[in-house]
């Protein structure tokens, strides 16, 4: 196997006494699409910021392109693109100025900045808004501009912290398509997300983080196989009675989970489980058998739904 693009060993980030990232080990190979999943406050952004070389690790070792961020920060940053969780666009500049001034920060020539700005405006579907003030853009447009800006230096590693939060479904699909194309061009992608469909679509491999630690690692498929059953039976009972039915469901499938609005039964054969529910004399208002998803893995591992 080739030298990993990112190698983190026992990486720790503390803010005062508080430990945000608690000794994680991560390796990302060139060309891979790698995801960080986890509930709010899990430490995803803190990890991303360390990888972006804008935040210093408190402990552990970190190598990016085989280089140490402490001694080679500028050299590493020259080769990566960063989309932070919160946009840091320059509101005093127009849309196109945001792109080419950023390019100048990477020491690109003026001609090169112009050329790439034109390309990236097209990429972000913002050509018509080139002269607009950033403040006048919609939230989704700002996000697209942030992503376009991160590509100005043609990075070989792209770090995206919740890239599609706030985008409408169509814009998300367009972005997935763009990211997929970048991946095919050999760009390594590292992203965080709260959308399981996004993780399943984009990531070859992902880790689930919780309270600063990695609690699971693998491909989306293997995580589902390892942590969830093949199918999930979703039952809805009359409002407020989910808990009391959870008792009656005991022993059904391999595991049950009572959520505020529904009860999940993890079973390899969902239909069989549903028949059993009926045999036990329960009459749910609705019942649905579906394939297990990453969302179920997430729920099992962190005890939280994504809405939390």
């Amino acid at each position, binding site marked *: 196997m080739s030298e990993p693009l990112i190698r983190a060993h026992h990486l720790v980030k503390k803010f005062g006494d508080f430990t945000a990232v608690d000794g994680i080990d991560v390796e990302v190979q060139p060309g891979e699409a790698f995801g960080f999943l986890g509930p709010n406050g899990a430490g995803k952004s803190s990890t991303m910021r360390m990888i972006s070389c804008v935040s210093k690790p408190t402990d552990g070792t970190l190598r990016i392109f085989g280089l140490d961020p402490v001694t080679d920060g500028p*050299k590493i940053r020259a080769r990566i693109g960063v989309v932070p969780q919160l946009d840091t666009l320059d509101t005093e500049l127009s849309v196109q100025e945001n792109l080419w001034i950023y390019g100048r920060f990477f020491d690109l020539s003026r001609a090169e900045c112009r050329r790439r700005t034109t390309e990236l405006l097209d990429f972000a579907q913002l050509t018509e808004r080139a002269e607009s003030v950033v403040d006048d853009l919609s939230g989704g447009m700002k996000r697209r501009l942030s992503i376009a800006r991160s590509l100005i230096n043609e990075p070989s590693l792209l770090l995206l912290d919740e890239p599609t939060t706030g985008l409408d479904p169509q814009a998300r699909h367009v972005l997935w398509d763009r990211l997929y194309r970048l991946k095919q061009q050999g760009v390594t992608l590292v992203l965080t997300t709260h959308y399981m469909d996004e993780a399943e679509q984009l990531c070859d491999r992902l880790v689930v983080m919780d309270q600063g630690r990695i609690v699971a690692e693998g491909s989306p498929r293997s995580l589902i196989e390892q942590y969830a059953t093949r199918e999930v039976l979703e039952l809805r009972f009359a409002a407020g009675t989910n808990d009391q039915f959870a008792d009656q469901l005991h022993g059904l499938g391999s595991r049950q989970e009572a959520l505020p609005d529904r009860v999940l039964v993890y079973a390899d054969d969902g239909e069989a489980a549903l028949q059993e529910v009926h045999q036990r004399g329960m009459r749910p208002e609705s019942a649905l058998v579906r394939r297990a998803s990453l969302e179920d893995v997430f729920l099992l591992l962190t005890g939280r739904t994504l809405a939390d």
Partner: protein
Amino acid sequence: MSAGVLRIFPPEMVVRRPHRMIERHIAVYRRQWLIVVSGFFEPLFYLLSMRAGLGSLVGAVSVGGKQVPYDAFVAPALMAASAMNGAIFDSTGNVLHRLKYARIYDAALATPMGPADVAMGEIGWALIRGQIYAIGFLVVMAALGLTNSWWCLMALPICALIGLCFASIGFAGTTFMRGWSDMDIVNTLMMPLFLFSATFFPIAAYGSWAWVVQISPLYHGVALVRAANEGVWSAGLLGHTLFLVVLSVAALVLAARRVDTLLRK
């Protein structure tokens, strides 16, 4: 590189591309050049009022043993003050906005730019602004016949040093501000600094309070500009220069370190 060398001279603290920050500001101010120009008028109005009013009441003042009329005594001081104003305007309010609210520096630090580039770029820009005012002021002084010889051109590099000093102090100080209300502190400090830096009367007039005046960086700047305008040089001016240089370097290093601790945590 050994760890020891790294500690004294961390790689992120090397200044490589501060001019990129200035390029960004030029792009912004191309549309707002009026704001830049307006800052020049305050000391100019002072000069005109001094000339018309006080100048006729107060007699000649001694500079380096030379008797000069009052308006020629005050003008270099106002020139030094205009360099200070330009530098302070840009390195306090504008920096606070970019640092805390617009978060311009966060974006820059995700590129090869480092904290020292950001600090140096901002201070450089503020210095340029101070320099623009100083040049404008010198032109007016020449037009009013207040310049004495070609030595007066030396006042420009001196004003650059004054600008550097105040921009560095302004930037470093601003990194400690909690919000807009702290800007009042700047205004409160600027007024006495402007009035009591041997600007309007010679330091001898301060009597036993002279030592307080000597702490003011503007006082040292004023002494240098005055000497340049009159073309009277003495060894004592080295002391004034050294004071400003040492203060500038110290504030610059502090400024870069503050950007590092604030934004790269």
